[in-house]
């Protein structure tokens, strides 16, 4: 369980996070989205006790991170997979971390096995590819078998296989009842991985929703073409739909599902030449949301 309450963080003059509140529950993957500089990394750094908040607080399982003893048993984090001493072996890199929390060498070998690095455990990490470094970073997060996991852009720079591996890992970790917070700028990736979405822009919350609700919110209705458009429009309006002529020539129908439209047309023996559900892609939805945040800010209101 992660709770961010009225969190603000300023670096000198720049406000990185500004009155941000949200919470992340167990058992599902929560995507943490926002454009560059939105404050995702900053929020995670405050959650992990690396940066002190200017005001507000960020709690893990109801505790301030710095108060947790042997925190790796409770929280695992991947912030920057490149943060390695290039001369140290993968095994030693993990062993350094494990020792501090009383985790044994056997567990180090286990997580290396789990992320597929057992074969290169004794190799210098400096020679690792980007994907191998990401895997090593994930291994470090998993060391203490924690119930809460934070990953900052784990798929950055990975090939499709690596992306799929991470996606499946995240989902399985959440399915085991863990709290998983995953940051990204890519809605297309989150769409496949996350159940919930926390979207921020310029340090403020834009929306906290489920992937399904967001898709519904950006539903643009169904484009319907029929040679007997006027009769069809009458039938659909009678069934409670809103019908408008579409600039492309057909009817833009909202308020009823495409299956309902098909059934109604069949019942009234009206031919249909096209029926295309048009939801904005989540990527478009996201662009619209984050662009909106800038506008709202200009008018001086959050959300």
């Amino acid at each position, binding site marked *: 369980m992660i709770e961010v309450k009225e969190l603000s963080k300023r670096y000198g003059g720049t406000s990185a996070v500004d009155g941000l509140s949200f919470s992340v529950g167990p058992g599902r993957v929560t995507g943490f989205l926002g454009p560059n500089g939105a404050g995702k990394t900053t929020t995670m750094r405050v959650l992990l006790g690396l940066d002190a908040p200017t005001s507000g607080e960020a709690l893990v399982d109801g505790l301030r991170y710095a108060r947790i003893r*042997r925190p790796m048993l409770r929280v695992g984090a991947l912030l920057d997979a490149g*943060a390695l001493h290039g001369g140290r072996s993968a095994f030693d890199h993990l062993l350094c971390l494990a020792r501090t929390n009383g985790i044994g060498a056997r567990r180090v070998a286990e997580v290396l096995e789990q992320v597929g690095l057992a074969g290169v455990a004794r190799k210098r990490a400096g020679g690792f590819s980007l994907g191998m470094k990401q895997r090593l970073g994930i291994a470090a997060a998993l060391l203490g078998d924690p119930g809460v996991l934070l990953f900052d852009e784990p798929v950055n720079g990975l090939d499709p296989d690596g992306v799929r591996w991470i996606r499946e890992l995240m989902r399985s970790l959440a399915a085991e009842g863990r709290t998983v917070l995953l940051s990204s700028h890519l809605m297309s990736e989150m769409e496949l991985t996350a159940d919930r979405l926390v979207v921020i822009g310029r340090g403020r919350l834009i929306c906290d929703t489920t992937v399904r609700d967001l898709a519904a919110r950006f539903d643009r209705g169904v484009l319907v073409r029929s040679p007997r458009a006027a009769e069809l429009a009458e039938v659909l309006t009678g069934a409670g739909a809103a019908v408008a002529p579409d600039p492309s020539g057909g009817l833009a129908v909202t308020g009823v599902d495409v299956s309902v439209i098909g059934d109604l047309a069949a019942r009234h023996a009206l031919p249909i030449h096209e029926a295309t559900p048009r939801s904005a892609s989540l990527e478009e939805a996201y662009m619209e949301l984050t662009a909106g945040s800038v506008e709202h800010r200009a008018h001086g209101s959050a959300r």
Partner: protein
Amino acid sequence: MTSVGGVSEGARTVTGVLGAEWVKVRSVRSFSYVLAGAAMSALLMAALAWYSASLYDGLPDGQRAGLSVTSLVSVIGLPLQICFGVFGVLVVTSEYATGTIRSSLVAVPRRWPVLAAKAAVVAAVSLAAGLAAATATFFSTRAIAGERPMGFNEVPLSEGVPELFAAAAAVAAVALAGAGLGAVSRSTAGSVIGVVVLVYVLPIVALNLPEPWSERVSAVLLPGLVGQVSGVLSGTLSHALLSPPQALAVLALYAAVPLGAAALALRCRDA
């Protein structure tokens, strides 16, 4: 969760963090380079003793009495202090340069145990290696000098042994100062410059001050302190201004002040 099997959680953390810092030190190449540097310094001292001996042998009988070579244990102090000062710096700044400091502090969010463990490992390694190199120098240079009376090998063992410990203590103090400077500045270059200033530049500057300031300042700088701790003065001081315990206390400040500043910086600053 205050005690596990009779061992307090705090003690477990301390031993765990110490173990982790030791793994960090021994698992990188720079550690071997530093140890090699110490070994080379000891070899260099043996070479100097050999050179002095051949010089002595080449002199006519009448001039031999005039050849007095300064204690090579005090000479090796300079390269050892630089070697282990840089070692102390790297133990801290390499974590900032690579970014691993973040995972270290995420693993130990109280932070001070990380600094304390680093200091303990740096102190233990530099004390042991400093003592080993100084002892090797002491015995090898005496063996090489043999029966030739050349000053440094005429000191009785009872005076030589405190000098070894004083030399090792100074090496450890500089190493800890390096670690402290590293944590405050987070910069390798800056901290190494700091170490060189402390070890090398300040003593030279002090020598050029007008009396009585030259003596007074030299007494609290590293070469003077080593001599006053052991009671075997060489080079910069003609007589001791501090008793051995006083000198040892000032030497301890060389480690304590930067480490104290480091603890404060680590506690208050964002990582």
